[in-house]
């Protein structure tokens, strides 16, 4: 194999379903998993005389996303018709935005290895309508369900700024966090709320010359796993193809591929001739939108601290690990619950441990958020303080927290009732230690003699004291007393 270096270049197109109650251009309800064709009206059917009218909330949600993605919001934006010839959009065109999208020139910051976030430039984001759903039956026909036709769809296009499958995945995950934080989409992959289309090629340096492999676009990926895997697969495939054929990017060399999940490979899709001739023209049915400073300011007021900022703040201000900060900021409501407990006086690291372990375990099992577990912020702060102060140990903390979820009692009361308060009083514990030492002369001997057995014997003595106190002794205090006693005799 000749000596070569290569760089992976990926741009991404993402479609996001907006979480409105109704469709983009008509009042049909957006509902997933309902009886086929039960959410359809003359606008969805493209019947003559039907007039589509824009959903204001869908437009404002889009602008909010544009702002979160640091885009310039257009003062004037309009809608166009894009030629479309599948029965899942019976108008024979899709209402989309062509030359004057509502937002352009932004960027998204994604977490990558190292302390700095990486900026991925956003080319544009525009608002359009989704198509319905075609089902290919075993017979010689297809079934069409138009319930999804007309769902508000935010299309985001990035510059080719990602350089690995992992970065593409990080970008997708970050975008999901952002749209969920903003409340503009559920971002539920299972329900097809987010679909990805990466454009991939390689810049190969060989014998001092640079070559670009033909771009492959992978259509319609709807899981993070498939997204990352398809990019990684393409890298290997394109390298191999270049080495075998020397094929480079030329006009018209771009291909469209699909992801075969079972075979874990991309597959070439048959191209329609002149498929890219969409024959856009301005849609006379849809009126343009003029954005005023006042309106934009109002929408800007609905922004919140974005997840990556929050995550980095948790690491910097609260000393949490990247991992813990990532887990806590996964869902906005969870992060805000954590912040309220910290505000109520809980030491962040202790609160984090309680919430990410017992808290999220129960919340995930119940399919709810931390705020819906019946935990009061003040009580959680108190509980964290009890652990911090050594009144209870960490496992007792979990036990008390479980109890707090089902009762109105405070953590102190629960701890007393369940006998979980640690004995930290040195005077009281000394008596227990004395007794244990008297009963276990052999072990005491082993500790004092040092050597191999010393450590095990020390552990054994600690265990005996814990047993005598029914596990209520603060092990750190017991250890201190043990150390003193074993030294002084």
């Amino acid at each position, binding site marked *: 194999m000749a000596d070569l270096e290569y760089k992976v270049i990926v741009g991404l197109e993402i479609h996001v379903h907006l979480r409105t109650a109704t469709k983009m251009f008509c009042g049909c309800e957006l509902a997933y998993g309902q009886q*086929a064709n039960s959410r359809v009206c*003359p606008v969805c059917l493209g019947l003559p005389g039907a007039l589509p009218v824009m959903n204001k909330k869908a437009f404002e949600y889009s602008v909010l996303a544009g702002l979160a993605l640091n885009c310039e919001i257009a003062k004037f934006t309009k809608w166009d018709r894009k030629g479309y010839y599948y029965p899942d959009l019976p108008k024979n065109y899709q209402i989309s935005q062509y030359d004057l999208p509502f937002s352009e020139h932004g960027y998204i910051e994604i977490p990558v290895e190292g302390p700095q976030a990486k900026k991925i430039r956003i080319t544009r984001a525009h608002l359009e309508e989704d198509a319905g759903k075609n089902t290919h039956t075993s017979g010689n026909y297809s079934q069409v369900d138009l319930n999804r036709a007309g769902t508000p769809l935010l299309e985001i296009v990035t510059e080719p700024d990602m350089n690995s499958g992992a970065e593409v995945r990080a970008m997708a995950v970050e975008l999901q966090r952002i749209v969920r934080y903003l409340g503009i989409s559920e971002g539920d992959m299972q329900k097809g709320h987010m679909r990805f289309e990466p454009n991939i090629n390689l810049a190969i340096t060989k014998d001092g010359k640079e070559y670009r492999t033909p771009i492959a676009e992978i259509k319609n990926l709807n899981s993070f796993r498939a997204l990352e895997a398809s990019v990684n697969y393409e890298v290997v495939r394109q390298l191999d193809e270049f080495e075998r054929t020397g094929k480079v990017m030329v006009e018209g060399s771009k291909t469209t591929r699909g992801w075969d999940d079972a075979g874990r490979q991309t597959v070439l899709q048959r191209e329609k001739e002149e498929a890219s001739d969409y024959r856009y023209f301005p849609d*006379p049915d849809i009126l343009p939108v003029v954005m005023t400073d006042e309106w934009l300011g109002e929408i800007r007021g609905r922004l919140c601290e974005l997840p990556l900022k929050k995550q980095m703040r948790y690491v910097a201000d609260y000393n949490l690990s990247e991992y813990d900060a990532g887990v806590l900021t996964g869902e906005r409501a969870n992060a805000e619950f954590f912040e309220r407990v910290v505000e109520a006086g809980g030491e962040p690291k202790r609160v984090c441990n309680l919430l990410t372990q017992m808290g999220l375990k129960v919340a995930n099992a119940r399919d709810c958020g931390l705020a819906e577990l019946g935990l009061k912020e003040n009580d959680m702060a108190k509980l964290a303080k009890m652990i911090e102060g050594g009144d209870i140990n960490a496992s007792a903390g979990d036990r008390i927290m479980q109890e707090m979820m089902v009762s109105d009692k405070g953590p102190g009361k629960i701890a007393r009732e369940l006998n979980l308060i640690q004995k930290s009083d040195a005077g009281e514990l000394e008596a227990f230690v004395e007794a244990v030492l008297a009963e276990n002369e052999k072990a005491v001997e082993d500790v004092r003699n040092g050597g191999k057995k010393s450590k095990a014997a020390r552990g054994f003595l600690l265990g005996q004291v814990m047993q005598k106190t029914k596990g209520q002794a603060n092990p750190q205090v017991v250890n201190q007393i043990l150390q003193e006693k074993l030294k002084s005799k």
Partner: protein
Amino acid sequence: MKKIDAEQVRKVAKLSRLDLTDAEVQEFSGQLSAIFKYVEKMNEVDTDGVEPLAHCLGVNNCFRDDVVRQSLGVEKTLANAPERDDEFFKVPKILDDNSGA
């Protein structure tokens, strides 16, 4: 020389999924050329300093609130369908499905 020749008519017909006979191609070539020539008159207008028009009404910001309205219901929705399969529209099998908005 016609403005819209036979080749262009065939291209447009293909994009529109229309099957035209050779006679029709000739006929439409003539008709489309005439229309084109007529519209070309517009080029005589001096448009220096005139902003391109995005919409002829000059009205902007027409929205509706995000409130659910009654849909047609499955039966009415499918009433005009050439063929149906239970509650679905039944269409000729889509072979190379590149659908999806």
